[in-house]
């Protein structure tokens, strides 16, 4: 009569195999510096694009509106929600 299945051995082995190997500190440092570098590279790709026309135009229009005494309003429908949240904590510290 079979009573014991040889399961426990298997699970133990699997657990040891999935345990993370400790990285060589030198490699870990290299990887971290590469991460920092690639993060900035990715980000700077966008920063380098400068200010797209749509935004300089927007600020120009807001400027005009201000001079003419018309208060600029956010475009209808874009930001109804989060309004209370912002006035509570988002704006100004």
């Amino acid at each position, binding site marked *: 009569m079979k009573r014991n299945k040889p399961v426990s051995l298997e699970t133990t082995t699997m657990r040891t195999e999935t345990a993370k190997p400790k990285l060589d500190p030198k490699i870990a440092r290299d990887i971290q510096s590469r991460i920092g570098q690639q993060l900035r590279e990715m980000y700077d790709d966008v920063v380098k694009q400068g200010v797209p026309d749509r935004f300089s135009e927007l600020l120009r229009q807001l400027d005009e509106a201000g001079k003419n005494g018309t208060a*600029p309003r956010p475009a209808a429908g874009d930001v109804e929600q989060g309004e209370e949240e912002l006035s509570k904590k988002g704006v100004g510290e």
Partner: protein
Amino acid sequence: MTLDPSTRDAVLGSIPNLRAFAISLCGNVDRADDLVQETILRALANIDSFQPGTNMAAWLFTILRNLFRSEYRKRRREVEDVEGKYADNMKSQPDQEGRIELQEFRAALAQLPSDQREALILVGASGFSYEEAAEICECAVGTIKSRVSRARARLAELLAIDSIDDFGPDRTTRAVLASGRG
């Protein structure tokens, strides 16, 4: 309301960084630009609550992040797999110089939980201090520190999977082969 020239210049000067942050948040250039536009309108409409002498960039980032989060909550009801969508968007970002390394990096970044991703970007790319990042994310400085360190550890794990030997001269060839698989 007249737009103070120094305010206008500060806002204008923050736009490239706001866009980079917005793209990293939502993974989509068009949505990111809309988000930046809403941020500018919101900021200028509430310019009275900005305290002169404090950090304008951090203030704008806070507004942008809050707008993104309220929009995200709204969309979560409509969109099933937001994180998955984010990952797809990040992968399909045009990479002008065809740098495969950077595509791999984006794919890895897309796998991070969003709170870790934003902390890492604020500190590691936008150049904010831990204190400023904590202010922007409305959490404790310690929380930011731990998110950044978990993000770095996870990225290292993800990138190290096929890069232990990627530091050798054969790296480019490997990357080309690897990209051929996907």
